[in-house]
């Protein structure tokens, strides 16, 4: 158990010099504070470019060029559905939207991941247990199914940073959280007129 040992070492360096928030120091602290558990490996503590740029505590400025470059990279990296079919089955989409599991140390890695959309969004008007971190998507189907709207919605799900860098929303496609079929089903749940998302409140 490295509790006392490591905390002492870090404690000492804290006292000796003022804390420089260089990235390596924080990773060292994190690595001394966590242990891998099931599928939640220590590698998950390492940041990629998006995470690093978007981890600046509030108020620390990041040059606009860095942001726009990264946003463009994300946009270019988006993978549209292979056969150009954007919409799947809204019933299965409803399940993905309501499933909060997937990729946690407590989850069964053989089971499909959930999208947990209801955690942050209102969707079907009759479902009262919805979150408010994201905008309400109730009645999203009214936006229609034009090519641009399909591409926009798909890209938001695939990697929202392509439009809105440092958004709180996970990169469901780019990070491999949801499969292509699951993304199609969520698209249907959002856009299919028959989906509960597009019905009026009972």
């Amino acid at each position, binding site marked *: 158990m490295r*509790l006392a040992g490591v905390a002492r070492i870090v404690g000492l360096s804290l006292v000796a010099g003022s804390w420089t928030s260089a990235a390596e120091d924080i990773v060292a602290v994190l690595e001394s504070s966590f242990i891998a558990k099931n599928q939640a490996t220590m590698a998950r503590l390492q940041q990629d470019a998006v995470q690093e740029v978007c981890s600046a505590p509030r108020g620390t400025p990041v040059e606009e060029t860095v942001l726009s470059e990264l946003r463009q990279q994300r946009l270019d990296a988006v993978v549209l559905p292979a056969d150009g079919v954007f919409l799947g089955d809204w019933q299965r989409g409803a399940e993905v939207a309501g499933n909060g599991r997937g990729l946690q140390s407590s989850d069964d890695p053989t089971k499909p991941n959930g999208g947990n959309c209801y955690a942050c969004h209102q969707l079907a008007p009759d479902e009262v247990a919805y979150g408010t971190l994201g905008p309400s998507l109730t009645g999203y189907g009214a936006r229609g199914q034009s090519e641009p709207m399909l591409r926009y919605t798909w890209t938001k799900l695939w990697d929202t940073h392509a439009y809105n860098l440092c958004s709180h929303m996970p990169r469901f496609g780019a990070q491999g959280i949801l499969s292509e079929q699951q993304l199609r089903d969520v698209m249907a749940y959002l856009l299919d007129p028959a989906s509960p998302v597009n019905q009026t409140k009972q």
Partner: protein
Amino acid sequence: MPRGYGVKTVFLWSVCLALSLGAARVPADGVFDQYRDLMGDDNPAVFVIDEGEELWFTAQGPKSATLEACDLGLGSGVTAGAYVRFPRYFADTNEVMDVEARLVHCMTTIQGRDLESVTAKPYSLRGDLGTEIEALVTWLAAESEGETIAPEQTHAAEREMYVLGEEIFFYRAGPHDFSCATCHEQSEMRIRLQSLPDLTSHAGAANAWGSWPAYRISQGLVRTMGWRMRDCFRQQRWPELQMGSTTSIALQTYMAVNAAGGVMSAPGLKR
């Protein structure tokens, strides 16, 4: 030491205290107000407070010593008002420590118990009624009931722990790019019906810091802030946070300093 109510003497506690719900977190639109009113003040955490107090006075370990000699920063054995000064720097270990780390230190030094066994199972698993650490931290929090939250920031290490805590608070990682800030950087927000305190603000931090540890009705257990962060990181898809680790101490320093001036009202009652 048998857990919970394995104590031989029959305690005919005739006293039932009415532990307030503390600053219970309910969504802004009060969807659970009716539920909380019906629940009233009767918080089963009262049992865990008693169990924590008993453990403080129970001799254990190779040195068969109680914890009465443990210095929580206000002098050895002083428990009243100690919790609200944490996390704080201790010269004897040359470290900034949280309550859990300090208790582990006293268990290993005063009682002579080995670090491995004392930290093997800090938090209850499903089916348990409560662990030693949970009960002790719950009693110590109750010993600071009504006190003003005032974490020590006089020592350079304590101030630097705050800076480190803020940095970790905003550190995004894992498949979902979650950081603590993802959920706890805005006020009046909720995940499903679970309200989210804005821990970067004084009001949100004071509300949260002041009401943990708390009895979780969904588990029938009192949980510490250490466990709360560990379970948050689990849902962030991160590896497992270790009790008393630097990240745990830094995040608690960040929260406690943001909460400074608030009132301690724990154990609270939560989902």
